Structures are given as structure tokens and as C-alpha cells.
């Protein structure tokens, strides 16, 4: 069989009449990046800088801002509400971590192949899809003094009902419990997919080695779930530090400010009905940002290592 000269001689050296100027490989990435970068710059990066800047001012959003240097920060150091918020943030951070083992537990429970298990998995995942506003309302109802299910149960057990959201010692835990609900679901799904990719040959090898149950989990499965655990950790930390919605919906920081967290306190100071201390609010935000930066840096550092590793 012979081949027509059209092919063997070829024309690729001088390919077809070029209609448009080809986008150069040097310029292309910047053109692709431009719109996204622009938006991100305007709405995220510059505002971060501006917030830091504003934190050195006293400003109510109406009158001209007025430079006061570090006074906002100095005031923070002497602000009980700030410490309450900080303390609550720490409680959030610590207790929110429970979502990880609990999520793992449910994931292990559901990691079977029986009939209808997919539906079960979806239903268990449900709380995560629901808005925190709805979750907050649901739990407010659950806790409501007088008729809330939880109140009734405690009343039934202890004679005196417990009004979680009115008790300064319980309120934060009550809100965290509400927050854990979707967060556990989130961790559960991460672990379920993680379990899917656990190398079966290692499980089999371990089985030959005589590892069973908890030992198998601890020595062989958990180490393999490390990526899932890492992601769960990241999202849980971020979730804990961002905990605004539930506080706002369930208590507005109350009773008497005992359930405030930094993110809510900042909103309260800057934009709520009794707020409009933009500078002070910004200072709180900067502190929150600094705390978050610790975790962000850790995350970026790990990503950077992974990228190098590629």
C-alpha cells in the first residue's frame, strides 16, 4: 500500500493559514489568571491589609477615622469580653476536635456493604448539608426552656430542667454540641472515602500478621487514614475558629456575653446595633487572623512539601 505524497511530504512545517495571532505561552497564564486574581485581590487580599490598617484607628463609620496607634490593642488586653471570647474560642477548638474521632467511629460503623447502606450513609451525612442557621434553630428548639426536648429529658432525669442556653457555664458547650452535629457528619464522609482507599493488601498482610480489631485500626488503618485525618483536622479547626453562625442564631453571644467567640465579638463591636467601633472590631479580627495564620501556615507548609515531593 502506498501513501499519498500529501502525507509523506507533509505541510506541518508551514501549517494552515493562521487566522489569529497565537497566544504566547509566556503571556497566557497571566491572561488566564487576570480576572480571578483581580476579584480576589479586590475582595480578599486588599481588605485583609485594610483591616489591619483600620485596627489602628478609632472609627465609627460616620465621622472621619482617627489614628490612635495601638490603643485598640491595648484596650483589648484589658477587655474581659475579649478574654471570654478567647477562652470560648479555645473551648471550641478543643471540643470541636471530638468531631474527628466521632466521625471516624460512625464511618467505621457504616463502612459495610449491606443493602441500603448508601441511603444510610446519605442520611447520616444530612446535617452537613443543612445551613447552620437551620441547625441553630433546630438546637434552640431542642434546648428551649420549658418545652425543648433536651430540657424535658433533663427535667425527667433530674427534676429540674436544664436551660442550656441560659446557663453561662453550659451555653458554650450547648452551642458546640450543635456545631458538632454537622461537623461529625463532615468528618464521617471524609473518613468514609478514606476507608475506601485503604490499601486492601495491607489489611490482608496485617491479618496474616495476626492484627485484629482495635490493633488493626490503630497500627494499620489509622496511619493510612492520615490524609483524611489531616483534612478533617483542617476543616475542623477552621470551622471552630469561624464559629459565627451558631452563636449568632442561638444566643447572640448571651447570656450576658458568656457565649461570645472572637468572630462574633468582632461583628458585635463593628456592625451590630450597639457597635460601630470599626477600629476595635478590626483589631479583634486581626487577633483572630493571627491565630488562624498559625494553622494556615502549617497547612501551606505541608502543601508546599507535598508539591515539592511531586
Amino acid at each position, binding site marked *: 500500500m502506498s501513501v499519498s505524497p500529501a502525507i509523506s511530504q507533509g505541510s506541518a512545517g508551514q501549517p494552515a493559514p493562521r487566522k489569529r495571532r497565537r497566544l504566547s505561552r509566556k503571556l497566557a497564564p497571566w491572561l488566564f489568571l487576570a480576572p480571578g486574581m483581580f476579584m480576589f485581590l479586590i475582595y480578599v487580599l486588599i481588605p485583609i491589609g485594610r483591616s489591619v490598617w483600620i485596627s489602628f484607628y478609632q472609627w465609627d463609620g460616620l465621622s472621619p477615622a482617627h489614628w490612635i496607634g495601638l490603643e485598640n490593642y491595648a*484596650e483589648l488586653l484589658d477587655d474581659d469580653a475579649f478574654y471570654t471570647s478567647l477562652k470560648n474560642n479555645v473551648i471550641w477548638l478543643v471540643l470541636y476536635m471530638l468531631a474527628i474521632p466521632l466521625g471516624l467511629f460512625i464511618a467505621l460503623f457504616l463502612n459495610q456493604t449491606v443493602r441500603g447502606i448508601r441511603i444510610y450513609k446519605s442520611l447520616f451525612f444530612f446535617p452537613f448539608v443543612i445551613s447552620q442557621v437551620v441547625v441553630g434553630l433546630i438546637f434552640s428548639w431542642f434546648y428551649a*426552656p420549658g418545652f425543648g426536648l433536651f430540657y424535658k429529658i433533663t427535667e425527667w432525669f433530674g427534676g429540674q430542667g436544664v436551660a442550656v442556653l441560659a446557663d*453561662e457555664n453550659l451555653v458554650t458547650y450547648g452551642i458546640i454540641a450543635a456545631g458538632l452535629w454537622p461537623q461529625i457528619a463532615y468528618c464521617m464522609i471524609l473518613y468514609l472515602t478514606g476507608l475506601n482507599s485503604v490499601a486492601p493488601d495491607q489489611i490482608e498482610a496485617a491479618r496474616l500478621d495476626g492484627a485484629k480489631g482495635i490493633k488493626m485500626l490503630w497500627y494499620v488503618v489509622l496511619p493510612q487514614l492520615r490524609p483524611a485525618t489531616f483534612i478533617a483536622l483542617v476543616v475542623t479547626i477552621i470551622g471552630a475558629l469561624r464559629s459565627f453562625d451558631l452563636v449568632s442564631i442561638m*444566643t447572640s453571644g448571651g*447570656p450576658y456575653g458568656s457565649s461570645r467567640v472572637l468572630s462574633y465579638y468582632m461583628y458585635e463591636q463593628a456592625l451590630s*446595633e450597639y*457597635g460601630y*467601633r470599626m477600629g476595635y472590631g478590626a483589631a479583634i479580627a486581626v487577633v483572630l487572623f493571627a491565630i488562624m495564620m498559625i494553622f494556615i501556615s502549617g497547612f501551606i507548609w505541608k502543601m508546599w512539601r507535598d508539591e515539592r515531593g511531586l
Partner: protein
Amino acid sequence: QQRTLTLNTDASDPAPKAAFDQLIKGFEAENPDVKVVVNIFDHEGYKTAIRNFLTADSPDLANWYAGNRMAPFVKSGQFLDVSDVWEENGLKDSLAPALSSMTIDGKQWGVPYTYYQWGIYYNKDVYKKVGVEVPKTWDEFISNCKKFKAAGIDCLTTGTKALWPAAGIFDYLDLRTNGYDFHMKLTNGEIPWTDDRVRKVFAEWAKVVPYTTPNTAAIDWQDAVSNIVQGKAANYVMGNFAVATFKDGGMTDDSLGFMDFPEITPGIPRAEEAPTDTIHIPAGAKNVADAKKFLAYIARADVQTKMNQELGQLPINVNSTVGDDPYLQAGFKILSTADGGIAQFFDRDAPAAMAKAGMEGFQEFMAKPERLDAILDRLEKTRQRVYKN
């Protein structure tokens, strides 16, 4: 030619909306060359929105609240001085009850058009059931409480989730204990919170705490209404706007009673609490002439009469007449005879930061009266910061 006048208002609920509609119709009828454009904002959102439109896109008129609530706008020059309107129309007389709360630095910054009284709403049936009389003094009130308690009924109820209902109780206790001038000085930051007179107020309050519904911090004020409705509680310190809620719950003029807050320190001129709604001309208004005309209009007795009939509240103008609603009648009576003075409300009389801290303190006190010292120290610290400049 046709001129326009823009009015921003938070009259998003049905009654205020109707009131404003009718108000504007009336004004346009008298001033055919002026067209009023109304922007209605959500009631809650308005508190934020006003800060934006005052600086960015100013209307010719905007409604707001009297007292310290308007101070930030006055101080930052966002509201126009309308003393001339007051002068020319003799408003200092006709709007006398609101004069002091409209005055900052000796000038008037807007025109009030409505207010409503606070007081104690109570369940007549419960009173009948327990067999007690409507109290005249605080001591009687407290002794009633003991009887309510014996009957398993909360003497006083409230829901302080939103903080401000607690301030109503404090305001009245202070007005009755120390009087109007003291209360004003306190909200103006002129008196330390650790003052003994303040402690006295809390001492009175402490008497009623054991008879107050527990866990108020987790209850919305509307939820507490149902305690009265269902006869679980007897008394409720509230504003007149709550009447609608009581009635929604099934109460009638026969079962819902209203009384003035009982006397504590005898001989103190009686002062009352009546938050006032106002209209202002923003500094950036384009049509100031017509705006002032509008202010003069809304200050008129007949206009206020009609408007407040729609609103279900009390007119400020002393020459206006009040509808035949028994609660309004009662309110009108106590307000027009309040020789001590009329307070706006804690969160309108005190600056925002102080108001917030104070109300949290009140809420905490209701739950943990034993912490009084710590609470007062904290409020004092806040006072020193807030009023510093």
C-alpha cells in the same frame, strides 16, 4: 414645577406602613407641587442602612429615634439643625414632652411624631385567682409576689434574650428609686455605677428576682408573653407595643390589665419611660426647604392625631387627641401627668457601648444577683472608657 422629597423609613411593618402612607397622602394634598418618594427599609436592617445612606446617598428625610440614639449622627454632623422649625412653629410648647430628648447642645435636631408608654401589663384573672389587689407601692408588689409564688405563679416574667427587656425593669426601678434627674445623669455617664444610689436600685431589684421566671436569658420577649397569657406569670414590665402580642395570644381588655410602675421612694416626682420616634433632615439633603415644610407638617396636632391612630401609639403634640383604646388612654394619662420627666429608654439614653454593657449586666444580675459587685465594677470600667471623649 414638581419638586421631589425623598423619605427613608423603617416602616416595614403593616401598621407603620399604613400610617406613613396616609401621612404622605395628606402632605402631598396640601403641597401639590411636592412629590414624596418613600424608601421603606426592613426594621432591623434600617439601623445599619441609615449609616450607609447618610454618608453615601442621602435622602431629604429619615426617621430615627430621640435621645442619645441620635447623638452619633448629630455629633458627626449627619443631621441638620432644625431649631428654626421648632421656633417658627412654636414646637417647644406643642411638643414639650419630647423637647429635652430632642435637644443636644441647646439645639433641636429633628421632630418627634410618636411615642408609647411603658408600664406593667398583668393578667387580671391571675390576680383574681390568687386574690390580690393591684399594688400601689413596690412593697405591696413584693408582698403580692409571695402570694403568687405560693400559688406556683411567677410574679414577674420577662424574656431577655434580646437584652433590652431587662433594661425596662432597670429604668423603672431607677426612676422610682432615684428619680429622673439621677437616671439621666447615670445614662449620661455623670455618676459612677458603683455609687450607693445605684446599689440601692439593685437592692430593690434583688427583692423581685426570686419571684421572676427563671432562665429569662434564653427566652424571647414574645415567649414570655405566653407565660402571662397562659397564667403562668402575673406581671410583665413592657412597652405598649406588646398589647398586640397579648391579644394575639387570646387576651382581651377584660383579662389584660395595665398599671403604672409602683412607687418606691415616696415623694419623688413621677417619671415615665416613653421611647420617641423622630424624623430628621440629613446633612446631605437636597431639598431642605420642603423637608422643613414636612417637619412642620408632621409636628401638627391634627396630623399626629391621625397618624397615631394608625400606629396605635401616642402622639407627642399635646394638642392631639388619643384614640379610645384603654391602654393608650391609660398611657396618655400617665405620660401627660408625668411631672418627673420622660425617659427614652436605656439604650436610647445611654451611648451604644454603655447600653450594651449595661443591659448585659442587668441580664447577668437577674441570673446571678450575688455577682452584683463584679457587675457594677465592670460597668464602671465601661463608663470610664465610653464617656472619656
